[in-house]
C-alpha cells in the first residue's frame, strides 16, 4: 500500500548550467550550482536574479562592453592544495587626494570549501587572498586604531570609500555598479584584516575579511597563466618585510656570535709569540744595508712588521727600498717604506702631516733564514743648512733606524669579524626600517600626509 519512496532531493550530481542573457542573448555560464544571488552578464553587464522557480529573471539591463581582467572568468587555480574557480569579477576603486586607486576582486569558489577573494591592486600590482573571518576582531587602542583577533594585532592602515565600477559573473550578494562601502584595512604583514559595513531594510551586517599577502608569481602559476604577472611597484600593504623575517633569531645569534668572537680573538692573540727580530738605530744613509736573520719557525707562515724611522725629520722625507730573501727557497719579497713629516701654518692655522716613522705589515712570511737588503734614500735639500731652526724650514734626516717584529698581532682580522657580527644586524635593522617607511607611505599615516 505504501507508495514508492520518492527520490531524495539533491542526490544526483549537480550540473553546471548555461543560460542565455535575457537582455543581449549572449551565453552565461552558471558555475556556482545555485549559490549565487545575482548574475551579471559578462557581455552586456545586465543584472539577473535567480527566482524561486530556478530561472533567471532580468533585473536591470545594461549595455556596457566586456572588459578583460587580469585573470579571466571561470579560470581555475590551485592554492595551498585547494582548487578554486573564478565565478565572479568585481572592479572597485577608491579616491585619495584626487588620485584614483583601482583594484580587481576575483570571487573564488569551491563547492566544498565555500568562497575566497583574490584581490589585485592595479596601482601597485600586489595580490592578496581573503576569506570571510569567522569571528569578530577586538578594538584595542582607539587612538592608534589597533584591532586584535586570535592573538594577532593589526594596525590601522587606511580607510577608504570603495565604489564598484565593473562587474561580471555570479555573486552571493546583490552587487551593483556604483555600490559604495566604507572599508577599513588593518595590517600585520603578511596578514591583514578588513572591515566593511553594509545596511539594508531588514537587517544590517558587519563583514570582516582576513587577508594574506600572496606573491604574484604564486597566483600566476596557480592559475596557469601564460607569461609573467603584472609587475609590482613599491611595497604592498601586506608584503612581508624580508629584513625582519627571523628578527629574533638574528639578534639572539648576534649575542652568541659576539661571545664566540671574544673567545676566538683571545685564543688567536694568546697563541702568538711576538718577538723583535731586528732593531738597529742610527744607521747612515750613505750605503745599502744587508743583514741575515731568522724569522719565525722554519716552514711556518707568520706576519711581520717592518718599521723604518728617520731622524731628524722636518718637512722632509726618507725612503727605504727593502728586499727580504728566503735563503732556503731563494724567493724574495720586495717593498718600500716611507717616513715623511710636513708641517706649517696656513692662514693662522697650523697643520701637520705624516710621521717620522713608516711601517709595513707583511703576511704569510714563511719562517726560516732570511737575507734583508735595504737601500735608503732621503730628501737632501737642507743638508748643511744653517737656518735649520727657522719656522717652516726643512730638516733633512741624517740617520735612520729599522725594527723587524715577527708574529705580530693583526687586529684587522678581529676588527673585521666584529664589524660583521655587530654591523650586519644593525644594517638589517636599518633596511627593515626603510622598508616599513616605504610601506607606510601608502597608508593614511604617511609622514607629511
Amino acid at each position: 500500500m505504501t507508495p514508492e519512496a520518492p527520490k531524495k532531493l539533491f542526490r544526483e550530481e549537480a550540473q553546471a548550467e548555461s543560460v542565455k542573457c535575457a537582455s543581449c542573448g549572449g551565453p552565461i555560464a552558471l558555475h556556482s550550482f545555485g549559490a549565487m544571488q545575482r548574475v551579471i552578464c559578462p557581455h552586456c553587464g545586465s543584472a539577473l536574479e535567480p527566482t524561486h522557480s530556478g530561472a533567471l529573471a532580468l533585473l536591470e539591463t545594461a549595455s556596457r562592453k566586456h572588459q578583460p581582467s587580469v585573470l579571466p572568468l571561470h579560470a581555475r587555480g590551485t592554492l595551498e592544495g585547494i582548487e578554486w574557480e573564478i565565478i565572479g569579477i568585481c572592479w572597485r576603486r577608491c579616491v585619495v587626494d584626487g588620485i584614483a586607486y583601482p583594484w580587481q576582486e576575483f570571487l573564488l569558489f569551491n563547492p566544498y570549501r565555500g568562497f575566497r577573494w583574490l584581490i589585485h591592486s592595479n596601482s601597485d600590482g600586489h595580490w592578496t587572498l581573503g576569506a570571510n573571518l569567522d569571528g569578530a576582531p577586538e578594538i584595542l587602542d582607539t587612538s592608534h586604531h589597533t584591532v586584535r583577533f586570535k592573538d594577532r594585532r593589526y594596525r590601522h592602515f587606511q580607510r577608504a570609500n570603495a565604489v564598484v565600477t565593473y562587474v561580471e559573473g555570479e555573486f552571493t550578494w546583490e552587487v551593483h555598479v556604483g555600490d559604495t562601502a566604507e572599508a577599513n584595512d588593518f595590517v600585520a604583514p603578511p596578514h591583514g584584516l578588513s572591515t566593511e559595513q553594509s545596511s539594508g531594510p531588514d537587517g544590517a551586517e558587519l563583514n570582516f575579511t582576513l587577508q594574506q599577502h600572496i606573491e604574484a608569481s604564486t597566483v600566476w602559476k596557480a592559475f596557469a597563466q601564460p607569461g609573467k604577472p603584472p609587475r609590482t611597484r613599491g611595497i604592498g600593504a601586506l608584503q612581508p618585510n624580508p629584513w625582519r623575517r627571523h628578527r629574533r633569531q638574528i639578534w639572539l645569534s648576534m649575542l652568541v656570535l659576539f661571545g664566540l668572537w671574544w673567545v676566538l680573538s683571545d685564543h688567536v692573540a694568546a697563541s702568538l709569540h711576538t718577538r723583535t727580530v731586528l732593531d738597529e738605530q742610527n744607521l747612515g744613509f750613505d750605503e745599502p744595508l744587508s743583514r741575515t736573520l731568522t724569522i719565525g719557525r722554519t716552514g711556518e707562515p707568520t706576519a711581520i712588521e717592518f718599521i723604518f724611522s728617520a731622524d731628524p725629520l722636518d718637512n722632509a722625507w726618507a725612503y727605504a727600498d727593502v728586499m727580504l730573501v728566503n735563503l732556503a727557497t731563494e724567493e724574495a719579497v720586495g717593498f718600500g717604506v716611507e717616513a715623511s713629516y710636513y708641517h706649517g701654518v696656513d692662514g693662522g692655522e697650523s697643520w701637520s702631516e705624516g710621521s717620522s716613522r713608516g711601517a709595513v705589515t707583511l703576511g704569510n712570511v714563511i719562517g726560516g733564514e732570511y737575507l734583508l737588503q735595504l737601500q735608503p734614500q732621503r730628501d737632501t735639500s737642507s743638508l748643511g743648512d744653517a737656518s735649520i731652526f727657522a719656522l717652516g724650514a726643512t730638516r733633512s734626516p741624517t740617520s735612520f733606524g729599522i725594527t723587524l717584529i715577527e708574529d705580530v698581532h693583526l687586529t684587522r682580522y678581529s676588527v673585521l669579524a666584529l664589524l660583521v657580527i655587530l654591523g650586519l644586524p644593525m644594517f638589517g635593522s636599518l633596511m627593515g626600517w626603510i622598508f616599513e617607511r616605504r610601506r607606510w607611505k601608502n597608508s593614511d599615516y604617511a609622514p607629511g600626509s
Partner: protein
Amino acid sequence: MNFRNVYWICAGLVLLLLVFDGAAGSLLTFAPDRGKVARDPASGTIRSHGTFVWFGGGYQGGK
C-alpha cells in the same frame, strides 16, 4: 636565501678567517712584489731587485 642565512654565513666565514688566518695573515695583508731572486753570475751574490713598491698613501716626498 634570506638575510638571517646571509648573516650566519658571513659571520661564519669571518670567524673562520680569524681562526685560520689570523696569525699568519696571508689574506688581509697587501701582497708586495714576490719572486725568485737573481744572482749575480760572477760572484753568486744576490742582486738587489730595485723595484719600487708603494705602501700606504700620503706624500711621496716633497710638498
